[in-house]
């Protein structure tokens, strides 16, 4: 910034705004929002359960399957909402059987893309009745899943066992 010499004759109080750095900062903010928005727009609201003894898993989107159950009981497979599986639709036995079929198909489709990995990441809201998770586990078993990673949050003040990195 140009330091104006403190001349007595100087009456120009307002400095010229440098446009280039301003545009620069704006563009960077724009990029940040472009990166962050898809994550917010997914519309998946869930409070994950808390656990102090967690294992870290590396997560690469194409190589992992995630099932999400949000606080209303809606199911998401790989971040996409599954139509036909809302809370009310699952209330009747017919509706539930229908939803299970859809979910099973989606899970099988997802596992076909990475057949060597048999882990299901489950991001379920902590206030859900365990029945939802039991249902998810039953479906996972049918899709050939061997292990469920129940994604949880670490309570503040504790850290995951750094040595405990999951093998897969």
């Amino acid at each position, binding site marked *: 910034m140009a330091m104006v010499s403190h001349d007595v004759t100087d009456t120009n109080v307002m400095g010229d705004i440098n446009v280039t750095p301003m545009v620069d900062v704006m563009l960077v903010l724009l990029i940040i929002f472009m990166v962050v928005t898809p994550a917010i727009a997914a519309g998946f609201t869930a409070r994950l359960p808390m*656990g102090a003894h967690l294992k870290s898993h*590396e997560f690469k989107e194409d190589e992992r399957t995630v099932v999400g159950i949000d606080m209303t009981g809606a199911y998401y497979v790989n971040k996409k909402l599954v139509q036909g599986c809302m809370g009310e639709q699952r209330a009747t036995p017919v509706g539930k059987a229908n939803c299970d079929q859809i979910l099973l198909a989606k899970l099988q489709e997802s596992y076909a893309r990475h057949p060597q990995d048999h882990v299901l990441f489950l991001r379920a809201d902590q206030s859900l009745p365990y029945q939802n998770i039991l249902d998810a586990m039953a479906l996972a078993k049918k899709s050939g899943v061997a292990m*469920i990673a129940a994604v949880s949050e*670490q309570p503040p003040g504790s850290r995951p066992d750094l040595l405990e990195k999951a093998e897969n």
Partner: protein
Amino acid sequence: MGVSMGKTGRSEVSDINITPMIDVLLVLLVIFMLAQQVLMKAVDIQLPKDAEANQPQNQDPDNIIMEIEPGGVFRVNTRPLTKAQLPSFLTQTYTGRPKKVIFVKADGRVKYQDVIWAIDMARGAGVKVIGAVLPPAA
């Protein structure tokens, strides 16, 4: 930069330019956001492998089975415990036990958080493998 090189020797401290600094910091932020591989922290729960393994209690009397019932009742190998008693009982059970495996069975009406809490306490007691007991397939 406000350094004047005149003979009068004005202030030698330069003003920090804020805008380029914010710029660089934001770019670094973006780089880290993009390059970061997302790490998911989770509780690993093993699913039973086949139909017979669904009822582990029938197989091996040495297995420890934790049952969670609605109303805050926890049972370890049918012994009833309160929420407060569970962690210490688990620690006691698993100290000196070579097979750090637990089977978890919970009623469908129990809150998911409570199940995770109980599993977490088991992990705190040294359990390495957690098996889920699923209800018999309808």
